């Protein structure tokens, strides 16, 4: 352990751009840190760049959500994890020494996004009951829905730094209760280098760490992140064999968590089965990359008895062969609950970070 924690693990919130998102998951392995699920829970904001220009405002908003005392640490590409952890711990120590002065001020003015436009203290004098600006503040309008109840619809944009979603992904969801009635996914797109072997396996383990965290298995997530970090330190045959053995042990542990049961039947997508099948394919893929059975992009997965659609619609979460069509995925999420949408997106692995280019062209 490079830095000895003196005040317990430092809660950090990670705002990661598409390129750094996967590798930032290795922070989950560090006992000096606690990767928070919400910026409100964090003391230090780790900004893992580079960020697309369009995410600047979202970054500032995320920053302003951290409670005082707070600090932020930039993680430039190429900087080792250890150095970032040291910087976070140092920033936290500084905050504890001088909580008042060291804490960072807001980056954006604290203004009401929907300012009060009524006349008079109680909004008397507004116009209309539905639509317009009744009594000064727009109200939700009713909309068609799954159960035919025509409830109020609410449109929110989740991301690009929402913890359960992959870095840079925006989910624009129209919700009735927690059921999505419309969904659009946007991602700037990421060129994942075509690679097999240890590099792909490492990315797969980074995905696994995040995915386990989303399913409430924080301890197991730390283990997966530690395996990814181990591969990062050296990719020789002995390390790969030891990581493969550890992964097999982790999979056996996962069998006792009920994870497979909770995944079964969730996130069904046409031609791609349910979330459980995609998870199993992902874990097989990581193991195959580790043992060198899978060379790189486009290789046949082999083994496991291919189900219908495996050849055409296979989504390898580790090393995405077919990029995910975000438009079709958004349409497929309609009618599901918000949590199932998250489970579905998670089960697609890093594929959502590499959307079909045509989908983006069409939207512009």
């Amino acid at each position, binding site marked *: 352990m490079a830095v000895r924690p003196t005040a317990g693990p430092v809660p950090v919130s990670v705002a990661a751009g598409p390129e750094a998102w996967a590798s930032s998951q290795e922070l989950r392995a560090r006992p000096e840190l606690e990767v928070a699920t919400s910026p409100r829970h964090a003391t230090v904001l780790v900004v893992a760049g580079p960020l697309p220009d369009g995410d600047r405002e979202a970054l500032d908003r995320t920053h302003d959500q951290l409670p005082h005392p707070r600090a932020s640490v930039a993680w430039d590409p190429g900087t080792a994890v250890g150095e970032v952890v040291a910087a976070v711990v140092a920033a936290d120590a500084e905050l504890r020494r001088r909580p008042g002065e060291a804490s960072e001020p807001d980056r954006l003015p604290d203004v009401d996004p929907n300012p009060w436009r009524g006349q008079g203290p*109680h*909004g008397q004098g*507004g116009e209309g*009951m*539905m639509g317009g600006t*009744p*009594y*000064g*503040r727009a*109200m*939700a309008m009713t909309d*068609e829905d*799954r*159960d*035919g*109840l*025509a*409830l*109020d619809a609410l449109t929110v944009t989740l991301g690009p730094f929402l913890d359960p979603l992959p870095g840079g992904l925006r989910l624009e969801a129209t919700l009735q*209760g927690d059921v999505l009635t419309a969904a659009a996914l946007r991602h700037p797109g990421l060129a994942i280098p075509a690679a097999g072997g240890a590099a792909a396996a490492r990315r797969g383990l980074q995905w696994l760490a995040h995915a386990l965290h989303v399913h409430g298995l924080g301890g197991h997530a730390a283990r997966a992140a530690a395996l990814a970090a181990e591969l990062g330190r050296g990719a020789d045959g002995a390390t790969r064999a030891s990581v493969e053995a550890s992964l097999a042990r982790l999979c056996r542990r996962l069998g006792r968590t009920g994870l497979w049961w909770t995944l079964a039947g969730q996130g069904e997508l046409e031609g791609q089965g349910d979330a459980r099948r995609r998870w199993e394919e992902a874990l097989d893929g990581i193991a195959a990359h580790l043992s060198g059975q899978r060379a790189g992009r486009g290789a046949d997965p082999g083994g496991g008895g291919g189900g219908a659609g495996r050849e055409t619609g296979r989504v390898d979460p580790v090393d995405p062969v077919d990029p995910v069509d975000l438009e079709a995925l958004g349409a497929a999420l309609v009618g599901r609950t918000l949590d199932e949408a998250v489970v579905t997106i998670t089960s697609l692995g890093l594929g959502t970070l590499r959307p079909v280019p045509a989908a983006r062209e069409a939207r512009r």
Partner: protein
Amino acid sequence: MSSGAAADVAFVAFALVAVAAGYRVFRTDSMVRATFLLLASFLAVGAILVLLAAEYLGTALLFMMTVEMVVMALFMVMFMMNPAGLNPMAMVHQPRLAAGAGVAAGVALAGVAVVADFPDAPVAGSAGAVAALGAELLGPSMLVFESAGITLLATMVCAVVLSASRGRYGPTHDGSVAPPLDPGGDHRPTDDLVEPGGGGHGHHGSHS
């Protein structure tokens, strides 16, 4: 029954909570607050029942009303256009008549309570009250108990039938007419308003 100064103080406190919370129910903008204020009123009455030695009834009231009020809060947020009361609006009608009727009823009943001469036969104590209630329910009052069970079953069936989107004669919105959006406007058919999943049904409303 609990007696003595402590019980008196507790009774007055609970009674004030019950009445004040009950009043606030209709004076708050937030529907969720209204619901849980009503729950507070129920809880206070439950506590008074416990003070009155009706221990079982007090606690039963507690959990029955809790579930009921949570369901009510769910409905509030579902059906109210303004559940948090962020847009203050007056959702009342005939306020003078309502207030008058309420005050009149309250005063009349309170008058009866003060003036009338009820028999004075206080309950001996809570010991055995729960067991006696059980024996009564499964003995002389068996019919009441059984009818309660049947009534609840009938209610469940009835509630499901009423609230299901498909009634006996097809989708419930077929042929019904929605209220106008502005006073004096035309009533509009509801097919554009509520469209249950699936769609594609014929427009054969009997009233249009």
